[in-house]
């Protein structure tokens, strides 16, 4: 993309071809993550959004093209050096049984530690601050096994924060959480972006949440191409949603935030039919 070259950001990718074994997920994909943005990647299932995030986090080696971090190909760094610049919250992580919250968060310090220097005062201060920000400090002595899903996700987030990277990649951080905890985690992300100066890149499923929280939205279509990117308010239209998701809808202003709110069209056009359907369902 011509714009990508004019304004070089800390994290961008050029001409990416992404594939698992035989299956090609995306070709010729170019994307730039604006510095200091809260970028959200959305798209229908299997469009390659998580794959793109994995490539940005050097979890997946691209078949073609390259990802650049701070002006250098991400593959040219030592993996520990990348870990000091870019953090990732993967979709699934495993907490070893019997580990306490504090000890798990402390493992996020690994890229900054050395054999004989495993727990400096700086480590302790950073871990404490990460736990305070995510609201898990009072849980520090508890076992991770005993926590609820929402608490656990905040613990993992604290571990990634303890890594002290200014760029954070989050792969579907709200999956498996109920709506209250989804909002809680996303509010926390928004705070990190606004007040702590983190650049965030998240893959989200919920288009409305994406529109509400993103400062920069990347919409992918099946086949791993970018359908649109920019401020949600400027790019999200009913036409775009129909084209990308195949979903007829109306786009209205979110009454809370003024960001776009997608309301799927009802299959039954008249209000009367809806009422009948309601009666049928309750009668059944």
């Amino acid at each position, binding site marked *: 993309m011509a714009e990508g070259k004019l304004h070089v950001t800390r994290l961008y990718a050029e001409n990416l071809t992404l594939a698992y*074994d035989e299956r090609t997920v995306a070709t010729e994909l170019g994307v730039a993550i604006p510095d200091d943005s809260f970028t959200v990647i959305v798209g229908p299932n299997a469009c390659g959004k998580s794959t793109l995030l994995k490539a940005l*986090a*050097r*979890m997946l080696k691209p078949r073609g093209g390259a990802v650049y971090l701070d002006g250098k190909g991400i593959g040219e760094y*030592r*993996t*520990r*050096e*990348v*870990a*000091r610049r870019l*953090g*990732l*919250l*993967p*979709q*699934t*992580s*495993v*907490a*070893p*049984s*019997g*580990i*306490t*919250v*504090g*000890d798990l*968060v*402390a*493992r*996020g310090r*690994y*890229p900054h530690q050395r*054999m*004989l*220097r*495993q*727990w*400096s*005062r700086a*480590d*302790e201060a950073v*871990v*404490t601050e990460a*736990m305070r920000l995510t609201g898990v*400090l009072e849980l*520090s*002595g508890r076992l991770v096994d005993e926590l609820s899903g929402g608490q656990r996700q905040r613990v993992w987030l604290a571990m*990634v924060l303890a*890594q002290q990277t200014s760029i954070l990649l989050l792969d579907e951080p709200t999956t498996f959480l109920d709506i209250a905890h989804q909002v809680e985690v996303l509010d926390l992300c928004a705070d990190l972006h606004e007040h702590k100066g983190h650049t965030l890149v998240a893959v989200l499923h919920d288009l409305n949440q994406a529109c509400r929280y993103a400062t920069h939205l990347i919409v992918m279509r099946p086949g791993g191409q970018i359908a649109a990117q920019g401020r949600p308010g400027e790019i999200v239209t009913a036409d775009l949603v129909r084209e990308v998701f195949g979903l007829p809808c109306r786009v209205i202003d979110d009454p809370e935030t003024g960001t776009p709110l997608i309301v799927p069209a009802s299959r039954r056009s008249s209000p009367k039919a809806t009422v009948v359907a309601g009666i049928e369902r309750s009668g059944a």
Partner: protein
Amino acid sequence: MSAPVTGRVLRTRGEGLSLRVDGRALGASLGLAVALVAVMLVTLTTGEYELSVPEVLAALVGQGDGGAEFIVGTLRLPRLLTALFVGAALALSGAILQSLSGNPLGSPDVIGFTNGAATGALLVIIVLGGGMTQTAFGAFAGGLAAALLIYLLAFKGGVQGFRFILVGIGISALALSVNSYLVTRASLHDAVAAHAWLIGSVNGRGWEQVAAVGGTLAVLLPVALGAARRLSLLQLGDATATALGVGVQRSRLVLIATSVLLAAVATAAAGPIWFVALAAPQLARGLTRVAGPGLASSALMGGLLLTAGDLAVQLLFPTSQLPVGTATGCLGGLYLCWLLAAQWRKGSYT
């Protein structure tokens, strides 16, 4: 507010050195070491010829009389040290594999290294007609071959723990049936020799076994301890470990190779010893209550289990020279039942 992490913090001025030490884990390891020394002293003093502790100590430093020196230096000490090193090597091997696979069944005797080593040993005894040293090399080669086969079959753009275990159980069953076939083809003399080898034992082991297993431990224990921190991050899953800056595939290859070599050398020296690699890491964890790999405490526990087991069979069956492998196999079966039942109740396997 105190530190949000467990353990005690040790820091030098200027923080050139800063460590976290878990008091409970340290205490448990010291306790294991004390128990180990006690078992070793009892082993060296008791037997057909009772020796006093001063007599044993004198013999150890070469100041004893000829009889005591022969009993300690030629009969008892090599057997004791073989048990100690084999136990430690097996436990370390098991601790590494269990942490890598995140599964208490990830142990060299469950996933086919041990049965593979037995295949190698039986081929040497029955087909090639080799002696004790050649058998040991056969066992070593067999263990490595089984591990390589598992690695290749389980490899799919990397090796993942659970697949490694499942493939390993398959290879183990395959090796077991090959072993049975080999024994049916053997002459009576070879079949007896094969059977004797198949029950792991430290009876009559000499200084060459001590040197082989001790030397392997001397090299691989530091390697394993050096990789322990990376191992504790691998426990969090590949993606998280990579994100934290661990070279996942390379670290895992180093750790698997370490585990395989330890198990193969231990089995070559003593024959198949069941239960130690499987249970020692779990028992050590029960004492230390650490969530990490706990390699050092596992090695101590393994050494203690096998030395104490060998002492027990010597005390309980003084005339029959019962091999320690029989005792560990028996206990191991019971332990495995208990482990599976406990996991089942916890709902880990559904």
